[in-house]
């Protein structure tokens, strides 16, 4: 059983997704428990995989018994096992949370929603687990296609945003596919480990350079890395709450994972760092992204839109950590993938809960929210402190490593950008916290009728509250145990050549 976990983690949600229409046709209420049960299985599988990796080192799973490089191989090392746990845990939490929010926002579309939801998770898990570049493209498109459809069923303006995303996302995927084609023409192989062996002999070749350029641009579009992020704010902010809570933390992080894989596994770091100036360019783009994201976020009054622009800046952090290309910076980047996935998931879950109860996401209308939804706002505050970077919340530790990495690389401007970004985050989040906790009731509201003086406590329903509280507790725990996470997993996940 245990050695089949790599297959189960993909096959179970994929097959289960196709059973949802049948189950929904029989009894609509059963879709939700089915999805949660399936995601529990994937989560257990991912824990099994990371356990195997930590006890016996990296291993590979041959699909159908065909030996690589001919067959498709699932390559499980520290980095992919680590990503599998993140993806499966956050998708489980979002699935638990989705019940009430989907019932309210998409009452007629529960069955297709859950089908697409599982397909999206299958795609994300597949991207992370596969050791084959073309297989990665297929999973990338499985996740993107279900993502397009899930965004399109959102609120006003969602179809337009989704259509722009389809166009941009397809360009990204096609560029990736072209990169795969060029590598195949040059090497005759599609297996990542095999490519890593063949490629160093042909680093001078122009084909390889072009392939690398196509890969970089394709992943930049898919992962919403700064200048190519234009499709993201509209798409993520108009999507249904449960969907944005899933895609905002995971899609961008998985794309960052693919970037690390391509740059440091398929290509050797010496190629990515020395042959082409891509790291310098990415670093400065991340520098602009951190400021541009922060400033655009300051201009928003819609809480969800503000978070989406913060996400642009957060992706910039990860790219910056990758671009300094040293051990500490990359440790910070990988740790930030984990931490940011938790923080973003928690924030988007909170926003979903607020719009579920209050019906607005305008940050100026959130008066007295601490009395109405004390636990939700508590979780929001913890996450806000983590985003600003106050220990012991986890955001502090990844930022610490990122800053150490930029200093080691001698990039003082980048270190300054990371610190400034903390300040911008402080302004952004304390603005929301001030409205929610300290602003007195406006007279217009107070005179609205006798009852508004007494603020009724109206906490989010339990299925929404539990994931939010777990994520907030997770943020603190990840911070406290970040030393253990680094010493037992992340230091082995950083490519050995650093």
């Amino acid at each position, binding site marked *: 059983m245990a050695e089949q976990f790599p297959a189960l983690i993909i096959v179970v949600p994929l097959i289960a997704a196709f059973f949802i229409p049948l189950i929904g046709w029989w009894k609509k209420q059963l879709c939700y428990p089915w999805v949660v049960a399936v995601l529990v299985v994937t989560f257990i599988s991912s824990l099994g995989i990371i356990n195997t990796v930590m006890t016996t080192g990296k291993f590979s799973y041959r699909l159908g018994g065909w030996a690589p490089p001919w067959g498709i191989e699932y390559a499980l090392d520290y980095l992919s096992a680590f990503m599998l746990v993140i993806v499966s845990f956050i998708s489980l939490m979002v699935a638990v949370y989705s019940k009430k929010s989907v019932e309210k926002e998409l009452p007629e579309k529960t069955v297709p929603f859950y089908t697409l939801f599982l397909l999206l998770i299958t795609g994300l898990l597949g991207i992370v687990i596969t050791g084959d570049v*073309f297989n990665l*493209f*297929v999973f990338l*498109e499985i996740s993107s*296609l279900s993502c*397009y*459809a899930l965004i*399109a069923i959102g609120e*006003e*303006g969602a*179809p*337009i945003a*989704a*259509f722009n995303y*389809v*166009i941009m996302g*397809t*360009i990204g*995927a*096609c560029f990736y*596919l*072209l990169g795969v*084609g060029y590598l*195949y*023409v040059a090497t005759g192989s599609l297996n990542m480990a095999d490519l890593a062996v063949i490629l160093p002999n042909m680093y001078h070749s122009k084909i390889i350079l072009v392939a690398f350029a196509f890969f970089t641009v394709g992943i930049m579009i898919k992962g919403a890395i700064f200048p190519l992020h234009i499709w993201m704010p509209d798409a993520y902010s108009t999507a249904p709450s449960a969907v944005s809570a899933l895609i905002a933390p995971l899609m961008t992080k998985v794309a960052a994972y693919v970037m690390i894989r391509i740059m440091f596994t398929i290509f050797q770091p010496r190629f990515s760092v020395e042959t082409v100036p891509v790291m310098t360019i990415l670093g400065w783009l991340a520098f602009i992204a951190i400021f541009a994201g922060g400033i655009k976020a300051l201009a928003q009054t819609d809480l969800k839109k503000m978070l989406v622009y913060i996400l642009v800046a957060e992706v910039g952090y990860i790219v910056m950590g990758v671009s300094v290309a040293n051990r500490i910076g990359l440790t910070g980047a990988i740790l930030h993938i984990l931490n940011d996935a938790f923080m973003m998931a928690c924030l988007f879950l909170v926003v979903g809960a607020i719009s579920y109860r209050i019906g607005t996401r305008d940050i100026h209308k959130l008066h007295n929210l601490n009395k109405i939804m004390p636990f939700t706002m508590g979780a929001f505050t913890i996450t806000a402190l983590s985003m600003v970077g106050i220990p012991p919340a986890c955001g502090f530790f990844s930022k610490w490593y990122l800053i150490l990495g930029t200093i080691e690389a001698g990039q003082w401007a980048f270190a300054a950008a990371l610190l400034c970004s903390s300040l911008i985050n402080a302004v952004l989040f304390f603005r929301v916290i001030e409205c929610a906790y300290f602003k007195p009731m406006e007279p217009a509201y107070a005179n609205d009728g006798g009852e508004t003086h007494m603020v009724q406590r109206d906490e989010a329903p339990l299925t929404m509250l539990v994931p939010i509280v777990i994520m907030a507790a997770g943020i603190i725990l990840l911070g406290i145990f970040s030393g253990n996470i680094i010493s037992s997993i992340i230091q082995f996940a950083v490519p050995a050549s650093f």
Partner: protein
Amino acid sequence: MLDYVIGKYNFWIYVVLMMIGLYAMMGKKNLVKKLIGMNIFQSAIILFYISTGVKKGGATVPILMGHAQGHGHQAIDVAGYLNPLPHVLMLTAIVVSIATTGVALAILILIYRRYNTLEEDEILKIRKDTGV
């Protein structure tokens, strides 16, 4: 120069097609034209892949006659067969491209129902007027 173009004409065709598709996606206002541009873009890549599997000089489909009965040590003449792998990859890519088109068309129907037009500038104007 001319020899350079003619000798690698398959790559030139794919590049030209791809640029046409890219132009349609960026330059056209009509959303259906954007979608068609996307399709041209994807087809160009499919053509590129397929052309890479071609071998000149009498190469044929890779059905190995006579090697199936345990003549394992007998070397297979690679030059005699086309490379099937790019073609197989493209079967998957075609499925992906059809699925993308399907999703995009469904989204276009949603857009048309909501705004009664598929011109991008008109939709932007409607959204601006209604303040959304």
